[in-house]
Structure formats: C-alpha cells, structure tokens
C-alpha cells in the first residue's frame, strides 16, 4: 500500500522539479545574457501561443533556432563552457528549477493514489439509476465499486449502453464528468481509491490546500 504521508514528505523535501534543458539537435550554442539565478517565464497565453523566455540559440547549417523555456522557474546552472561551441544532440545545456504549484502537487498525489477509470469513447455518461440515487443521497464517497460492477450508462445519439467498472475495488473519490455533457474518449470519468486510504487522502489534500506555499 502507498504511504501518502511519506509521499507528501518527499514532495516537501524537494518542492520543485529540476528541468534539464538539452540541445534539441547538434549545433553551435549561444546563451546570450542569461545568468544563474535568472527567473524565466514558461509558455503562456490562452492558446499557449506566447513562447517562454529565450534561453539559448542553437545554430546548425546557418539556421539559428531559439530554445525557449517550457516552464517558469529559476535558472540554477548553465553550461557556460559550451558557449559558442559545437554540441551534440541531447547535450545538457542548463537546469531550470521549477517550483511546484498547489495544483501540481495535488495532481502528483492523486495520480499516485487514485485509480482513474477512463471513458472508452466520446459520449455522455450517467451513473446507473441505483448508484445515482445513492450518490445524490449521501455523496459519491459513499459508493463502493468493484470490478465488473454495472456503474455507468453511456449515451450517444439516443443509443444507451450500460458500462461496467473495471479496476481495483474502492470508493469513488472524485467524479470528473458533468451531467449532460460530452466526455472525450480517454478522459477520466471517476477516480477510485481504496476504502482504508480515503481519510488519509482527504487529510493530505486538505493539508496541501491550506499549507502549501506557492513560490515563484
């Protein structure tokens, strides 16, 4: 069984991700005026259309290509010895320390602890009538699911098919779909966790929500 407290401690001990920026292909590298400690921006804009901070340029066959930061963070080391030199593909150029945000921490914890059940095809999903009744009365966490249980109704263009749950037993921790809205194939429908871990997860999530300090 996964030790959630230990996982949280682990994340707390190193509350960041170290992103290694490598050369996308061979070429001559120039770093510009970037220094250690510089804060960089990641990709932004509603459609991720604005590139991040320019980290370096790499030139191959008279074709200068920019390397942009993918995530926001702080530059912790730069391979300055490579400035103006030819490097092979995948050569590490610099390291960016990206501090985890509250949502990212939660995502990591839930990814490791929950078993996600995904939509097999694009359709509208509903809970089976008896499950639905129970959820409405006392919340989703009161429902225990087991492998092969008839849990959903998949509805698409007036065709309704019942859909069974497959995966480890447990309670429904989170519901990711909305009533009357289409869910794309491969998107999670529910997250299931073992019964005994439920209070632990709830506690950890509450603690992350209140205690996690977001750093730039």
């Amino acid at each position: 069984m996964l030790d959630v407290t230990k996982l949280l401690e682990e994340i707390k001990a190193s509350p960041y991700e170290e992103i290694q920026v490598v050369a996308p292909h061979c070429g001559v590298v120039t770093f510009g005026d970037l220094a250690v400690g510089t804060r960089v921006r990641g990709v932004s804009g509603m459609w991720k259309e604005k590139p991040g901070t320019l980290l370096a340029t790499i030139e191959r066959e008279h074709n200068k290509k920019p390397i942009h930061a993918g995530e926001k963070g702080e530059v912790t080391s730069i391979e300055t010895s490579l400035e103006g030199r030819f490097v092979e593909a995948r050569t590490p150029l610099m390291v960016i320390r990206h501090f985890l945000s509250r949502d990212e921490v939660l995502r990591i914890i839930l990814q490791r602890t929950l078993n996600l059940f995904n939509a097999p095809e694009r359709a509208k999903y509903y809970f089976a009538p008896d499950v639905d009744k129970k959820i409405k009365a006392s919340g989703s966490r009161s429902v225990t699911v087991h492998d092969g249980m008839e849990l959903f109704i998949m509805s698409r263009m007036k065709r309704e098919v019942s859909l069974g749950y497959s995966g480890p037993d447990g309670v429904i921790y989170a519901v990711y779909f909305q009533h009357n809205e289409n869910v794309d194939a491969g998107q999670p429908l529910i997250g299931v966790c073992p019964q005994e871990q439920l209070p632990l997860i709830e506690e950890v999530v509450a603690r992350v929500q209140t205690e996690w300090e977001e750093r730039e």
Partner: protein
Amino acid sequence: MDNEKRVQHLVERLGYIRDIFGGKHNENIELLATRLAEFSQRDTGAQGENGPALATLEDLFTFVERKLEAELTPMDKVRIVRHAQRICLRDILENVYDNFTEIGGKDEYSIDPSMLIARAYITRRSGKKTYHQPVMVIGQEKGHGEEFRNGGSVKPWGNAKALHYMKVAETEGIPIHTYVFTPGSFPVEDYPGAAQQIARNLYEMAGLRVPVIAVFSEGGSGGAEAIGLADRRLMLSHGYYSVISPEGGAAIEGRLRHGQRATPELIEKCAQQLRITAADNLRSGYIDHVIDEPPLGARPYHFDFFRTLRQEVIRATDEVLLGVKGFAPLRAMALRRRRKTADLDLDSVYVRWSLSSSAKDRLVARRQRKFLRLARAACKDRRPVMRKAASMWWDMWWDVYSTFKYDLFRKHQQKIAYVLEEVDAEMQVLKEKVLKPWRRITCALPGSGGACEDTARDLTTLSEWDETEQRNGNWSYVSPRAKQDRAITCPNAATHGCLDLWAPDLFGEFAGVCTSCGHHFPMEYQWYLHNVFDEGSVFEFNAEVEAANPLSFEGFDVKLDQAKQKTGLKSGCVTFEARIDNTKVVVAMLVADFRGGSVGAAEGEKFIQAAERAKKKRYPFLAYVHGTAGIRIQEGTNGVIQMPRCTIAVRRYIEAGGLYLVLYDTNSYAGPVASFLGCSPYQFAVRSSNIGFAGPGVIKETTGMDIPPDYHRAYRALSRGHIQGIWDRRDIRANVKQALLTMGGRNLYYR
C-alpha cells in the same frame, strides 16, 4: 421652458464644447463657464427677474459657438461625430420622416442593435392631394452612447440584415435611404465574416434596382461602404469619411507596436493629411452634396437642421428618379431652380417614387458609370498622347470585333455547328459499319495489336496520377533564396516534428513546400508567373499606370519611390494576358512586395481595366492575390473608393457572362477582401495562406478580444464557406485548368 431647464441646457452645451475641442480654446470655454457659474449663483429662482440675463447668456453661447466654428480642425470634427450628443439615426427617423416602424429587431432585442432598419414614409401635398411615399431607412445607430449599440460598429450579421432589407425594398420597389454613422465594421470572422459580408453587400448594391440615397455622418472605411454604394451620396458638413480612423492612421504612420499610443499631435496631423472632411470629399467628387449643419454640429434639438435634411433627402431622391424617368422636364427644372435658392419646400412638388423596368436598367447603369468615373485622376498615367489614343482605338476596335464575333456571328455559327455535329455523328455510325470488316483484318495482322490493346486499356482502367503535372521538381523559375546554403525550420516543426529543410531543396525542387507537413513558405510572385502560365505566354498591359500620392501625404513620395525601385514595378497591381494550357485568361495580380500589396487608385484603375478587357475579349478573369494588406491609407478616400468601383467592374463582368476566379496567397486582409475579391463566387486559397478583415492587433484593440493563432487561416475561411477550396502550390496550374473547365460563365470564348 423654465429657467432651470434652460440653464441645464447651457451646461450640456458647455460640456459639449469642452469635449469636442479636447483641451483647446480654453479661454473661450473658461469665459462661458465663468458666466454660467455667476448666473447660477445669482439665480434666485424667480423667472421674470433673470429672464433677460439668461437670454443674454444664451446669446453669448451662440456667439462663441459661431466663433469657434471657424476654427474647427478635422480632428475636432472626428470628436463631434463621436460625441454622445451628436444626432443619431433615431433622431432622424423621428424628425425627418412623417411616420416609421422599426423592423428587424428593436433596441437590444435585435440580432445587431448597431444596425437599425425602419420602414418610414414621407408625406407630400401636391395641390389638394396627399401622398404617402414609403422608403426603407437603413443605417448604423450609435444611440447617444448606449452601450449595446456598440458605437455603430456593425457585426457581420448586422450587415447581412441590412442586405436582406435592401432586397425587400427592391422587391417592393421603394427607394432606400441609408445613413452612415459608423466608425468601422466590427472585425470578427464569425459567419458570415466581416469581409465576406461587406463584399456581398457591395456586390448586391452595385446592381440594386431601386434608388439608393446615402447620407454620411461618420464614414469609417469598410463599415461605411457596406451601405454606402448609392446613387446620391450626401454628407453632413461636420462629418468625416475616411479610409481609416485618424488614430489607426497615426499608429501605422508612427510604426507603433502593440499597446503603444500615438501622440495627440500625430493623430491631429494624420486627420489633417487624410483629407477626411466633407469639403475635401466634395472636392474629390466622392460626395455629391454637403448638407450644412448648425455651428459645432447638429444635436437633437436643432429642429431647423432636420427640416433641411428632410428637404435634401427628398430632393436627392427626386433628382435620381427624374434623372432616369422618361419625361418630367418641368419638375426637373423646378428642382434645379430650387438648388440655387435657399428656400426649400419640396413637399409641394410631387414625384412618384417608382420606376419602370427600363428606367431601373438606366438607374443601375448610371450608378455604375458614376462610380467607374471616380478617382481616375488619382493615379499617374505617363503614356504619351499618341499611345493613349492608340489604346483607345484598340479598345473601340475590340468592342466592334467582339460584338460582331460573339453577338452576331457566334449565334448563327452555333446553329450551323449543331447541325454539323448531328450530321457528323450520323456519319460516324455509318463509317463504323462500313469499316468494321476491314478493321477486323488489320487488328489480326502481327504488330498491330499493341495500339488496340493500349486504347482498350486506357479506356477501361482507372487513370493514374499524372507525374508530368508537378514537373518532377523542374520548375521554370527558381527563387533566388534557393542559392543560400542554409537550413530552414518549418514553423510547424514543434507540433508536426518536421525536419529542417535545406534552402536549395525547399525553394527549388520542393517549390517552397515543407515535405513533412505541407506548410507553404511564401514564394515570389515571379514563381507563379513562370510556373502557372504557359511558357512565354504572359503579355502585360497598362504597365505605365503608376501609383501616385494624390493627397500629397507627407513622406509618402519617398516611400513610393523606394517601393518602385525595389520591385521594378510602377504599382502594386500587375495586369496581363496569359495562357493556361492554351486557354487565354486575363489576370490581375496584387503583388505583396509593393507596399504590402495595398490597393490605391492606380491598382484599382488597373484592376477595372483588366476586368473590362476580359469582358470585351470574353476571356476568363483571374485575380491572383500574391498578398494584400488592404486599402492604401495614404491615399485616403481615393483608396477606399476603389472598393465600390472595382466591385462594380467585377459585377459588370460577371453579369456579362464571364468567369471571375480569385486565388489568395500569403496574407490577404481588409478592403480588397471585403469588396472586389470577396464578392467572387469562386474563391480559392493557396495552402498556409491567411484571409481576413483585420489583423490580430486591430481586433484586440477594437474589440478587446484575444483571438486564437489560427483565426485567419485559410481552412477557417473554407469551413465558413468564404472560399471554395485550398490548393497546393504545385497543383495551381492543374486546378486553374480544372476550374476553367467546370465553373461559371456563359460567354467564355473557349466554351
């Protein structure tokens, strides 16, 4: 009116003066403010006591307004038309027409509240009779600053609504009065698309079979043109009619980046140079008549002004109708006489506002001729007199020749051809019967079977991909960029994983197309000249027509000379005759390298001449848009008038039975797309091209909306129904050939 109301009125007048001068003439404004404050302090409320003092104060206001009127600059006039106290269309409906019903939505319950439509009537008394004359009133409504009116900035569906009711008026045979109160169209590409809808409006208005009278107050570029193509164009003396707002012009002139603001001085200078006022437009001939407004512009309480406006629109409608009606000499004379005198009472002269079918034809022809005559002097034509005369004779010869060949000879020739075809088909059957025994013997001989088998195979199996079409990468023209020894990254590399391409390969053999994702890099216009048309078949005409600087816009002469030197062209439009697989076509090409492919008077004139030539010679007409940034703003209204002009030329060509094809490449935006390009029934785009009304920066600034990066992609235009297909650059020749064979046009010579 009691004193309080009168004082309140003066307070509003003072605020108006303050607003429209934007910080100028402070001493006059302060004087009025002080006097008004003194009066307010003294005012004890007894009406009898302060009556004379208030009258004096009102006189002072009138005096100062008259004094300041003489000092109005073009930018002040821009502020006047944008002011919330400026008269709006509802005021006009209430005060100019005798009765009206708003149709097509009301207030905020309308598909687009900024476009107001009303059925109205004007009552006239002639002798003892009373006549109710119905009109369709269409115009932008600014609504004294009501937020949902969007400042008169009409969305595409608002323009579509206007067009719908123009058609209704045409069905009912009643005149249309349009009132232009718009700073410009709302630049969104949602269906039907700003550009596409304006183009449709222009195309339809070019042939509308009822009189159209337009009154301009705020004529902002494309938005104004959407309802402004009229038989008579009147303008309010304090209005403006311009290709771009002075702020927009200043942003372009000052090369301001996103978010930067132009200085007031630069905006003022631009307003001055763009020649946007009523007097300027009257001088250039783009406006027929100016209607005088009270000092500092008309406001809703100027009832005398509404009376003048009523008389002017009635007169304009009467004049248009009498101009095309068969016989009405006395009334026409009366109208002419009344033009000279200040006394206007047209209510007593009755002109029936309906037309016979032939009069409607004359009306449309007259409107089209009127627009085609405009702006001819705004470009340079350096041909010597003899050459001009020769070209005129040549044109006339083509008129006679094409009438003889296509109208007279072709009709009878076709009848003979049909008979001959029938006889020939009969003969074929006979020949088959007679020769059958002989063929059986020859096919049986050794060595003769191959041909028979080949023919049989060709006819019975599916055809194969014709490799010769793409020339195996051996193009007639190779871009100079192919000489660079460097690699090029495809812009889609991050998402599609395209490998770097070596420039000699990319711009040579691959014709500027990424081998991995199919992205089309822009190519020079010469590439198309040499690779789309038959070798050596291109024959340019009107090359001497030269772009000029008709407004003497400061610094523009130098920029034009630079463009001419850089490209070796005299204008942004190259017109030529060429052949595609031996089918002759007339082509007008907008070249992106010449001032961004912007369209001014020279480009418009060349385009019109090319359409005329195609009409005369019965050739298909292809508009190849290598790129266009819009109307050339430095030419002001001389540029914007090309929108209706060229659309009219295109309509005349299509109605004469021609096939008008448009092919967009690289970036095509604004005016040209919203008129003579967008009105084509057959529009195509080269892959990776962008088509739209306004660029992302302008959309952000005017609407406040962020737009997705693929907003202007050709595929969006295709799914919206703006264009009919997207072509690979290497297949253009084959696709044009296919289009020539399968699309439109009843009078094409090769059919």
